[in-house]
């Protein structure tokens, strides 16, 4: 990999959904571009329906872009690649972690088996897969008891640790997390955020952190992309964007985060004001 090359580079991404006869298409993502440095961390924020998950789904290939390009380490991610080798290579490029891991984990497999399975899929020998599975479990803070447990026997936080370990098992260069800590208790949330920071440091994986929780995004990302109705309205260093937002929409989003001086009526006012200018 070229040293200056972005781990992930996205340009002109667009996706529209047909809404039925006589109704114009819903443009869920419109001309979104960004770059992510190796080991970097990008937040994608915006209110519900702004297109965050659609971006995440296009990154991992669960949704096909109408246009635009996604490059991982300089290599364009094709949409029509077929065959096992191509599929596995794509998996090694980008992995996704969802909000609700129960839906994405195989209920029949124990934590250790689940990791073993993914590792074998990616070509590890049996013994190597066993060794690596243990290593991954330890890396995400799951012990021997959890290693032998099936997903429904794990707590929400433990399940999310397993989902992260499983994503890492593929050896991805980019990890996409879509509301991955949103359903967790604050203390578990803090544990997972800390885990992600450590994994980023240790493995150099780049993170795309999708969330509507600005405070959490502020804690784990260096850069942030603010989405409104499918478009990126602001993009810059997280600290700057969240503390001195330039775009009125970002200002409205920041004002809606509960904290000292929070006034819900003020949020409503800013939102109405913004909606009025956005219509015009």
């Amino acid at each position, binding site marked *: 990999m070229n040293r200056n090359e972005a781990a992930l580079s996205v340009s002109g991404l667009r996706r529209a959904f047909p809404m039925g006869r006589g109704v114009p298409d819903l443009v869920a993502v419109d001309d979104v571009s960004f770059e992510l440095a190796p080991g970097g961390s990008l937040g994608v924020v915006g209110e519900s329906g702004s297109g965050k998950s659609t971006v995440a789904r296009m990154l991992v290939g669960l949704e096909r872009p109408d246009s635009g390009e996604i490059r991982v380490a300089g290599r364009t991610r094709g949409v029509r690649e077929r065959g096992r080798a191509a599929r596995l290579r794509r998996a090694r490029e980008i992995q996704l972690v969802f909000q609700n891991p129960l839906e994405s984990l195989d209920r029949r497999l124990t934590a250790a088996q689940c990791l073993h399975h993914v590792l074998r899929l990616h070509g590890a020998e049996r013994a190597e897969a066993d060794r690596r599975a243990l290593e991954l479990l330890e890396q995400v803070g799951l012990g021997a008891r959890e290693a032998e447990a099936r997903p429904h026997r794990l707590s929400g936080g433990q399940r999310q640790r397993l989902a992260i370990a499983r994503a890492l098992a593929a050896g991805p260069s980019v990890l996409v997390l879509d509301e991955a800590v949103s359903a967790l208790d604050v203390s578990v949330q803090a544990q997972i955020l800390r885990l992600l920071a450590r994994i980023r440091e240790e493995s150099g994986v780049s993170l795309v952190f999708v969330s509507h929780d600005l405070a959490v995004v502020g804690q784990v990302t260096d850069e942030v992309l603010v989405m409104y109705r499918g478009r990126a309205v602001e993009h810059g260093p997280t600290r700057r964007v969240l503390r001195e937002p330039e775009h009125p929409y970002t200002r409205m989003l920041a004002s809606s985060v509960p*904290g000292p001086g929070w006034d819900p009526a003020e949020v409503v006012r800013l939102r109405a004001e913004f909606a009025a200018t956005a219509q015009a």
Partner: protein
Amino acid sequence: MLLDIENLTVALPGAETRRPVLDEVALTVEPGEVVGLVGESGSGKSTTARAVLRLLPEGASVRGRASVGGTDVLAASPAELTELRSRRVSMVFQDPRSVLNPVRRVGDFLTERLILALGTPKAEARAKALDLMTEVGLNRPEERFRQYPHEMSGGMLQRVVLAAALATEPELLLADEATSALDATTQAEVLSVLRDLRESRGMGVLFITHDLHLAAAYCHRVHVMYAGRVVESREASALFADPRHPYTRGLIACNPGLDSDLAPEPIPGSPPSLSTAFDGCPFAPRCPEAIDACTTWRPRTHALPDGGVACLRAEREDVVTEAVDAGTEGADTLRRDEETR
């Protein structure tokens, strides 16, 4: 006093159960007041709300008192209980879709509630429902009236549920994580509506949330719960300025907030299940400030000017500070005593 809970202790049946789910819980809500109840999941917040309506699992044993507007909930007759549940107290939960029937129009959901709970004549119910929808900030109510739940966003549905909850003009609203599933903007919109309605109606609100920042910003007073106990009760503004219980400080450190440069610091370990009993302070195994005496200290609430705190060290510090402030003889001894611990 609108809601008055005193030393409420609830034990659930079951061989695995080693401690009460609620342990001497005390809290109050005045008319027109919003009182927050925060804590990690499993701390007993929802059980407290359900206890107010005597909606406890079969076989639960209950001690203590809970009264709503003078009605003793635990001693209420079936008729009084029905009156409480259907009219005087309303409850709103996190997931509106669990309350709404997916194959029925939202307008019918509202009119049905009016007809059943208030006996509103059918002809009037529609107009009343439309008024309610306007009141909770749903635009184009005529159109919304005919929509099905899947045609509305989570924020709109929560407004519909709120409209239904307010239809009976309740004295008390129990909001259990009512805005937790919404994004911050939508949450602010729903809470802005709720604030106006509460003020105009003088309704009291028990506001359950796991978000301490939200509780501090939205409520008048906040109770922090841990393992079935209220460990700190404070004026909302004091909660962040001067948290007194190590658990409250721990919760704040987990999410330092948008304006902070601090990294999130988790509380070590996890909250105890009902199969764990304690001889001393329930937080001791996770408390970074615990001293030996904490493992045998019998939790009790020490009064503060704006509430109370149930922590051995907080209590001692407070006693020392008071003694020093009062220039009491012996303050030095007390302080030395404290420092050598």
